C-alpha cells in the first residue's frame, strides 16, 4: 500500500483545498428555436431539465464515494441571442427567466449563456439581448451573462464597447452585486466551464460535460518545499503539481460523463482563488519570491505560474480546454485584497498582469460614480490586450455605489 501517496492525496483535499470547482454541462439549444416565445421557452425548459436531470445527483454521489468535493454544479447553454433571434418581441427577459427556473428546479448553482457574440457586428438578436441584460439579471437569481466584443481575427467592435459601459452602469443602478454576473470578453472560448463567462459554443456537440478544477493551495504548499531554489525547479514543481491536480479533473469527469451517458468535453485547470485562507493566487506569487503582489516582478511571476500550469495540465488530460491558467479576481483573493489595501497593487499593474494571466480584470470594484465612458475605456484597453496578444481577456467590474 502506497501510504505516502494516500497521505499526500488526502492532504491535498483536506488542507490545501483541492476541489473540483465545477462540473458544467454544456447544452445546445439550437433545437429549441421557435418564433413563438412561449413555445421556445417550453422547449428550452424541457431540454435542460431532461439532459441535466441527474447532474446534481451524480455529482453528489461522486463526491461521497471518492471524497473529492465538487463545489458547483452548473449548466451553460448556446448564446441566447441566437436562440431568441427568431422571435418578434424586443425583450428577452422571458428566456432568462426560463433558464433561472430550470436551474432552480434542478438544484443547479448557476446557469450561463444569456450571451451575445458581437466581435464583428450585431445581428438583430444581439441588440435585443444586450438591451435586456440589466432587467434579466435583476429578475433572476442564477443566470449569468456574457458578451464577446472582440477577437484577434475580427478586431474590436467599438460600438459594443461603448454600449457595454452603459449596460454595466445600468446594472449597477439596480444592484451593483449583479455586475458579478456579467463578463465582457475578447476572444471568448466556447468550452469554458467557469462562471460568469460560460456559454455553450456554437461549434460544440449537442451536450457535453466540462470540468473546472482548481487548487491554488496545493501549488502554494508544493512551492514552500522548494523555497530558494532556482526558477527552473520552481517551474518544474508547478508543472508536476498542476499535473496531479488536473488528473483529478480528468478522472472525475470521465466517471461523471459515463454515469450521465454524455460525452466528456474538456478539463479546465484554472487556479481560481476563493476568499478562504490558503486559497489564493496572490500567495503563490509571493511564495515564488515577491515581497507583495503588485511589486515589480509580479507580471513575470504570474507569467511563470500561468505557463507552468498550462504545461503541467496539458499532459494530464485527454482534452484540455476552457481558460486554463491562473485567475486574478481581485475581491475573491485574500492576498490581492491585502495588497490593494496596503497600496501595493494598482489598477495599472493589474492591467499589466492581465496580459499574462488567463483572463482579465476580474471582480474589480470601481467607485460608484465612475462614468460609462470610463468603464468602456477600461474594456477597450483589456480587449486590445487580448486582440493583439491572441489571448482571452475580459472585464468584470463592479461600480460600488455608496
Amino acid at each position, binding site marked *: *500500500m502506497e*501510504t505516502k501517496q494516500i497521505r499526500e492525496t*488526502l492532504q491535498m483535499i483536506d488542507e490545501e483545498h483541492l476541489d473540483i470547482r465545477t462540473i458544467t454541462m454544456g447544452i445546445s439549444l439550437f433545437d429549441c428555436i421557435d418564433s413563438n416565445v412561449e413555445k421556445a421557452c417550453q422547449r428550452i425548459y424541457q431540454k435542460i431539465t431532461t439532459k441535466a436531470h441527474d447532474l446534481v445527483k451524480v455529482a453528489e454521489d461522486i463526491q461521497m464515494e*471518492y*471524497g473529492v468535493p465538487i463545489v458547483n454544479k452548473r449548466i451553460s447553454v448556446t448564446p441566447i441571442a441566437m436562440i431568441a433571434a427568431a422571435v418578434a418581441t424586443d425583450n428577452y427577459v422571458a428566456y432568462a427567466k426560463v433558464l433561472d427556473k430550470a436551474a432552480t428546479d434542478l438544484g443547479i448553482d448557476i446557469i450561463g449563456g444569456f450571451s451575445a457574440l458581437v466581435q464583428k457586428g450585431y445581428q438583430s438578436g444581439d441588440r435585443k439581448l444586450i438591451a435586456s441584460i440589466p432587467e434579466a439579471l435583476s429578475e433572476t437569481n442564477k443566470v449569468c451573462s456574457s458578451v464577446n466584443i472582440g477577437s484577434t481575427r475580427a478586431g474590436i467592435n467599438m460600438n459594443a464597447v461603448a454600449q457595454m459601459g452603459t449596460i454595466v452602469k445600468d446594472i449597477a443602478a439596480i444592484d451593483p452585486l449583479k455586475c458579478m454576473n456579467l463578463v465582457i470578453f475578447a476572444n471568448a472560448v466556447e468550452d469554458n466551464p467557469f462562471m460568469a463567462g460560460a456559454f455553450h459554443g456554437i461549434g460544440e456537440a449537442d451536450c457535453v460535460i466540462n470540468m473546472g478544477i482548481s487548487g491554488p493551495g496545493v501549488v502554494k504548499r508544493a512551492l514552500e518545499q522548494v523555497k530558494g531554489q532556482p526558477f527552473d525547479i520552481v517551474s518544474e514543481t508547478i508543472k508536476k503539481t498542476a499535473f496531479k491536480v488536473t488528473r*483529478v479533473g480528468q478522472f472525475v469527469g470521465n466517471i461523471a460523463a459515463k454515469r450521465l451517458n454524455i460525452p466528456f468535453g474538456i478539463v479546465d485547470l484554472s487556479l481560481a482563488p476563493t476568499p478562504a485562507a490558503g486559497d489564493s493566487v496572490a500567495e503563490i506569487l509571493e511564495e515564488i519570491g515577491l515581497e507583495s503582489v503588485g511589486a515589480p516582478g509580479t507580471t513575470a511571476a504570474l507569467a511563470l505560474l500561468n505557463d507552468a500550469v498550462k504545461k503541467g495540465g496539458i499532459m494530464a488530460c485527454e482534452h484540455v480546454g476552457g481558460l486554463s491558467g491562473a485567475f486574478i479576481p481581485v475581491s475573491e483573493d485574500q492576498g490581492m485584497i491585502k495588497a490593494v489595501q496596503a497600496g501595493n497593487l494598482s489598477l495599472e499593474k493589474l492591467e499589466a498582469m492581465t496580459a499574462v494571466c488567463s483572463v482579465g480584470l476580474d471582480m474589480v470594484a470601481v467607485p460608484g460614480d465612475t462614468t460609462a465612458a470610463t468603464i468602456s475605456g477600461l474594456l477597450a484597453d483589456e480587449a486590445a490586450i487580448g486582440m493583439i496578444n491572441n489571448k482571452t481577456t475580459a472585464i468584470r467590474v463592479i461600480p460600488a455605489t455608496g
Partner: protein
Amino acid sequence: MKVIITVIGNDKVGIVAAVSQKLAHLNINIIDMSQTLMQGSFTMMLVGDISDQTTSFSAIQEELTKLGTQIDVTIRIQRQELFDAIQKL
C-alpha cells in the same frame, strides 16, 4: 471494488480493535493495512474489498462515521481509483 479507509485521531487503547470489528461486521475484507504514529497522531490506513457488498456505499460511510464519533477519531472511506488516477501514470 477496493476502498481506502483512513483512521486519524489521538492514540488510545482499542482503535484497531474497534475499527476492524466494525469492518468485519460490515463484511468488508481487509486486504492490506498500515498503522503509524505521526507527530503523536494515530494514523491507520486500510485497503478493503467491498465487491461482495449488499450494503450501499453511503450506508457503510454512515456506519463508519458513527463509529468515528463514538471513539473520537476521524474515519474516512474512499474508492481507491482516485488515488491511482492522481499518483500513477
